[in-house]
């Protein structure tokens, strides 16, 4: 039995299907990634699993409890870090944790040692009595993770936990998540639209788009499914060279990119290099570098959805959102 069991989950808002017939299981101690663009239904799914929303149809069980019938038992067994920073910055870290402990009816002898241990883990011990308004974005996020873990949940939901953070803070958060999973054995459901985040952290990934499940597998197997490498040639795009490269039997696709030429091959990248170099030599093509890359989750996403993941860069206040764009690349 999995810690989370979702079967044919549907959620509609005024006729709009935010979650469309999704099914998946999460095993104990697993980090399960949910990948998708904004509006794909990730947060709605989490809200249903946390009993904040009622599903239109389908069933969901968390730690064996039905999210509709046993909502109180579900709440006792989960912790959550919401997409938005939801922490009272008029209080200190310890005060925030104290309020949280009271909400879960935790005794003083129970929550104080645990709070101290968790604050130590996320390196906030020394600033535990400081007002949260003086914290950086990354520190607030870490405190939210501590709060989510205070009641010793069996499942931790992390909804876009690194949204709006700088790269260094993101790395810190990833490290804490991996340590929590390894040391405490907590099952984690993490949603993100950052490919690298899900790739690094997750044991398995579900890609959802328009509320529907697109594919579910381990990150490596998902990438292996594409069965090819990508060679990136840095230099000016040369149309004749592209045409000649396309004639090679192991080449799937060749396209000009902003930095040069991208060559998709269906054999290991290294094996394809001699033949490709011959053609480059024949054209006397002045390239700067040649790199071989494994397909990324971005490639997987494009392969299965026919488009790239719309990325979003929030500003400091998380209020303005910028869509970088969506490339339609049907295969």
């Amino acid at each position, binding site marked *: 039995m999995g810690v989370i069991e979702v079967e044919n989950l549907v959620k509609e808002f005024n006729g709009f299907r935010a979650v469309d017939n999704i099914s998946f299981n999460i095993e104990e101690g697993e980090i399960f990634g949910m990948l998708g663009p904004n509006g794909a239904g990730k947060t709605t799914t989490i809200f249903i699993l*946390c009993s904040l*929303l009622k599903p239109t149809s389908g069933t969901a069980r968390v730690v064996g409890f039905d999210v509709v019938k046993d909502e*109180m038992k579900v*709440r006792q067994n*989960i912790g959550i870090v919401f997409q938005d920073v939801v922490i009272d910055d008029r*209080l200190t870290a310890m005060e925030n944790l104290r309020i949280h402990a*009271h909400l879960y009816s935790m005794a003083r002898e129970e929550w104080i040692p645990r709070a101290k241990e968790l604050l130590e883990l996320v390196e906030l011990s020394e600033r535990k009595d400081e007002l949260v308004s003086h914290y950086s974005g990354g520190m607030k996020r870490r405190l939210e993770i501590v*709060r989510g873990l205070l009641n010793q949940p069996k499942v931790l939901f992390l909804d876009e936990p690194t949204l709006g953070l700088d790269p260094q803070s993101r790395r810190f958060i990833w490290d804490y998540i991996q340590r929590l999973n390894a040391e405490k054995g907590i099952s984690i459901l993490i949603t993100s639209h950052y490919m690298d985040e899900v790739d690094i952290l997750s044991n398995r990934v579900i890609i959802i788009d328009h509320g529907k499940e697109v594919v579910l597998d381990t990150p490596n197997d998902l990438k292996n499914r594409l069965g090819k490498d990508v060679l990136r040639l840095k230099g000016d795009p040369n149309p004749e060279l592209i045409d000649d490269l396309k004639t090679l039997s192991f080449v799937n696709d060749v396209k000009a990119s902003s930095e040069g030429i991208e060559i998709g091959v269906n054999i290991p990248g290294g094996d394809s290099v001699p033949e490709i170099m011959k053609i480059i030599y024949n054209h006397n093509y002045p390239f700067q570098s040649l790199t071989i890359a494994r397909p990324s989750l971005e490639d997987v996403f494009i392969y299965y959805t026919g488009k790239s993941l719309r990325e979003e860069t929030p500003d400091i206040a998380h209020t303005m959102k910028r869509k970088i764009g969506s490339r339609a690349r049907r295969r």
Partner: protein
Amino acid sequence: MGYLSELMAIFTRGMIILWRNRLLLLGNLVMPFAIIAIMGPAANLQTFGYLSFEYLTTGIMGMMVFFSGMFIPNNIIWDRDTKYLNIIFVSPCNRSTIVLGYSLVGAVRSTLQILIIYIGACVISIVLGYNNTNPQKGLPYISFSIPVLFGLIGITILVTIFVGGFMTIIASYSKNSETFFLLASIIGMPLIFISNMFFKPENLPFNLGALGIINPLNYLINTIRYLMLGELPPGEMPWEGPLLIIVLAVIFTFLGTYTFVRSVKK
């Protein structure tokens, strides 16, 4: 332990925030004293004794309690808008603790105000001509008494909880705090004007004084006046006001919780 602990969470948070906002706290405490010290004797003189110091003092007390309750949903709306409520909703706490917890914070605030007005009125009575055995017309004669003090605290807490629950229902239908304050004023201000807070019911135009029987504020004021001055309108029993307020506090805490949770959770 469970319910009390959950209630404690909401209450403690509200109290810490109130304590940290010293300016707000100071304003809340200074304002009632300023009103009673300046307006009380002045209004008495301005109205040639028609509105006595005691009548105004008890009216102002009622107004303070009502306003404290009126602003309780402001905190809940703030929590809703900042999504902090999701943290509470995702915890296994009883939903009624949200409305009741915030109402208790409001009750602490209004109790402090009431105590300041009461003690201030007693001091003014002594300074300006207190005469316990033979109160002279036009001179303040409010005296201090411990049972009255406890009675005032009890009624203040109950009324704040009732008004907090009632206003939470209005907050449930308000998309933002501006709409809430508008709706709360539209409903709240007429309740004040047709009550016996500042005007004697028999002098209200168009027989509006008759509506006093369905205005819960009248029962609040009558109870305060009974406690402090020993006066009660003809035909009203001393237990009627407190009993009605207890019933309303329970009903509106429940209704406020129900409508608010329903408005947030879909």
